[in-house]
């Protein structure tokens, strides 16, 4: 009983620290890839290939003055970045990084916890995470910050619905909300004649996958949906008044969110730890890297949406498609195709 608890804590500790390290190198990865897209070199001076750049950035941000504007709602202003930052890595707690292994005679699960509501839990974290942005924008006492916060609220409220509903098809097929069970379902292989195909949900739920991807980019406030921090219109947006490490909390929360969403997308649609030769966490890492690259690719390629286009896309295009997907999946399941 307690062995399980202790091993969970140890795995959780490792996952948290690896995630915090990865988040720093995600900034490096983004700068490098973005530079290549723009025919530049990116950071090169700090260490080999600029690998020490995240450290330099961190030192710079930590040594900056922590300014609280005179007009600010002080308590909320100080707490808001923490809300964003603390909630961001919690989603990784339900991602399965492997099944169970035996280590020194103990049975160790390679995930922090396998709860029955894992996917809903991540959605709930997403709906809490936006509080950091809204409260930060409100508490700054600055009109531009407030506008950024309002945009963010409208955006998240709209795309959250799409995000949640796009997963319903996956739930219908897998019959479970537990990520471990969803991964197990996907690791069964289907055979069409002589062709062996993995039961990855990207193949049976391509529409849901596309919708999830769009909604996930919007949920993490990344380009082209980065209206809350549109520097050309809002002088930065919700974090205009933040400086130093409080700003870096917002900044890093965004990168952790990207990583967690990439892990979630790989787990839900690409089979997670399931792979052609040997199952393991490396497949999950490779798949997540593909998504992270995709994020940077989008940022390098697409211009920002206009505000009305953003809302129109969510409610007039994505929403009907999501309902169509649910209806189709339900009908197919009802008539016994793809039944477990």
């Amino acid at each position: 009983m307690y062995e399980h608890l202790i091993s969970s804590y140890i795995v959780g500790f490792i996952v948290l620290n690896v995630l915090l390290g990865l988040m720093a190198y995600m900034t490096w990865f983004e700068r490098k890839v973005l530079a290549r897209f723009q025919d530049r070199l990116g950071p090169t001076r700090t260490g080999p290939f600029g690998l020490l750049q995240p450290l330099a950035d961190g030192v710079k941000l930590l040594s900056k003055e922590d300014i609280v504007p005179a007009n600010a709602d002080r308590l909320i202003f100080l707490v808001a970045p923490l809300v964003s930052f603390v909630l961001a890595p919690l989603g990784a707690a339900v991602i399965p990084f492997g099944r169970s292994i035996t280590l020194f005679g103990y049975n160790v699960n390679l995930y922090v916890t396998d709860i029955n509501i894992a996917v809903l839990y991540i959605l709930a974290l997403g709906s809490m995470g936006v509080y950091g942005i809204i409260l930060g924008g409100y508490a700054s006492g600055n009109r531009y910050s407030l506008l950024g916060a309002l945009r963010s609220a409208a955006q998240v409220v709209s795309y959250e619905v799409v995000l949640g509903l796009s997963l319903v098809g996956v739930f219908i097929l897998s019959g479970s909300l537990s990520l471990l069970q969803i991964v197990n379902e996907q690791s069964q292989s289907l055979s069409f004649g002589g062709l062996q195909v993995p039961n990855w949900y990207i193949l049976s739920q391509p529409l849901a996958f596309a919708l999830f991807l769009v909604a996930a980019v919007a949920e993490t406030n990344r380009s082209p949906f980065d209206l809350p921090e549109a520097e050309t219109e809002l002088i930065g947006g919700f974090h205009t008044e933040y400086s130093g490490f409080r700003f870096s909390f917002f900044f890093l929360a965004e990168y952790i969110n990207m990583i967690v969403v990439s892990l979630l997308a790989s787990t839900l649609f690409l089979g997670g730890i399931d792979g052609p030769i040997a199952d393991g966490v490396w497949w999950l890492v490779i798949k997540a890297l593909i998504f992270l690259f995709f994020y940077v690719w989008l940022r390098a390629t697409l211009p920002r949406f206009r505000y009305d286009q953003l809302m129109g896309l969510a409610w007039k295009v994505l929403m009907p498609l999501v309902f169509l997907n649910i209806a189709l999946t339900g009908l197919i399941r009802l008539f016994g195709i793809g039944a477990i």
Partner: protein
Amino acid sequence: MSAQVLVFDILSVIAVLAALGVVLARNPVHSAVSLALTFVNLAAIYVILRAEFLAVVQIIVYTGAILVLVLFVIMLVHQEDLPEFHGGQPLQRIFGFLVGLALLGEVAAAILTRTAVGQSGPWTPQQVAAAGGNVQAVGQVLYSGYVLPIQATAIVLLVATIGALVLARPDAAILPGVIQRQVLTISLGHPRGDGEEEGYEVPMLPSGTTTKEEAGERELVMVKTGDEFTDQPAWGDRKR
């Protein structure tokens, strides 16, 4: 078991304190944030009670709804009034106090007249586990015994959605044939724009449109700096 009780005690104390914050905070945004804190603590208490599904729904539905509450506060209350906002007339306050007292009495009566333990429902932990977990158990109950209420709720929500759509529709879509209202802007710097010349006409106006002068909207103010336009200073304390 004792650890569970300890965690419950901590959570419930925070929840009650945050609930007090909801009614005592002067700033409505602080009230809303306190309410969110209360709901999160309630969700944690649900997790202790092994109602994980209820906990997550509590966060997604209620805490998400508070977000909208915060937005209403920000948009409907003047920004200058926010830090010290006292809502309501004296009569409203007395009425609210009385209603609150009545509700408190009802809750107290409900708690005192029946014990919380001893009357367990039909679903034991074993039955929930047999159903495949919390979500499956809730789903089975909702879609077997409560199908009719669920469908009634769905119809009510559908009607509300349609109502919102009708309200949000532009007039021209409801009354076909009416020319859709368009806002045309004419540049004042345009060589033909001052209307002084002989035989001048405003260019390219479709029939049935009105110009701003006829509608009589607002006068043109010419100022050198923003301070002349508004009595609010650009820097320093705001005038109330």
